[in-house]
């Protein structure tokens, strides 16, 4: 339960997330109490599953199935563009942060389970397709960073997510 999460840990993760967000041109929700609640949820999920899956989504507990909802999730950037906030509203756009615009409620963009399985198979096919390029091109599913090299980087140099968040692009 969120109550069990130690408040010093909440402060620490909040500070780290904030520093990383600002360095990358992202912004945390300025509603501090709400944001602290989400960070408590992230810590509860890290405790339960070993990774910080989205506090507003039901994780399966299987990292591979939950990759797309590990914060920052695959859907953050398109939701910021369309609604001014990500699904759980941990991240908001600059105009929402400064109060110039209110964030709109964000409908769930994550496909339902059957559709996710289909997409996963499709991606596996693409990654097996013989290429005519000298190097495969990898795409970060969180921020869209592209690189042409044999393997994706260990950590995305742009948004800092782990290698398993990359997909074969070409």
């Amino acid at each position, binding site marked *: 339960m969120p109550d069990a999460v130690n408040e010093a840990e909440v402060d620490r993760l909040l500070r780290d997330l904030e520093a990383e967000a600002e360095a990358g041109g992202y912004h945390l929700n300025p509603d501090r109490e709400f944001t602290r609640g989400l960070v408590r949820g992230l810590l509860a999920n890290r405790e339960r599953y070993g990774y910080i899956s989205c506090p507003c989504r039901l994780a399966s507990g299987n990292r591979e199935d939950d990759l797309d909802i590990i914060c920052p999730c695959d859907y953050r950037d398109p939701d910021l563009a369309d609604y001014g906030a990500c699904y*759980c509203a941990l991240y908001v756009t600059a105009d929402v942060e400064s109060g110039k615009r209110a964030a709109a409620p964000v409908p769930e963009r994550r496909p339902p389970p059957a559709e996710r399985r289909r997409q996963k198979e499709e991606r596996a096919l693409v990654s097996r397709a013989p290429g005519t390029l000298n190097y495969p091109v990898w795409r970060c599913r969180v921020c869209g960073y592209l690189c042409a090299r044999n393997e994706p980087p260990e950590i995305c140099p742009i948004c800092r997510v782990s290698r398993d968040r990359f997909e074969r692009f070409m």
Partner: protein
Amino acid sequence: MQHVPGADRGKVVLYALSTCGWCARTKELLTDLGVGFSYVYVDLLAGEERDRVVREVERWNPRLSFPTVVIDEAKVIVGFRKDEIREAVGA
């Protein structure tokens, strides 16, 4: 399923996650409106019970997203939609 006592506005069920800020706001809203309702934190369930409740939520909301509020086993409200919830419970 936990029950919060209050005015009888039909069968009001809130499917929620214990870690979610919007679920917390929805629970707060229903409590403030003084409506009697039941709620369950799906993320805290395990095993067969969890499977059963997940199937229940999917029946009302195939995306399996939270919060999902079901009123009288007919009206479904997905997300913290304050005005819609207020209207649906007639408060």
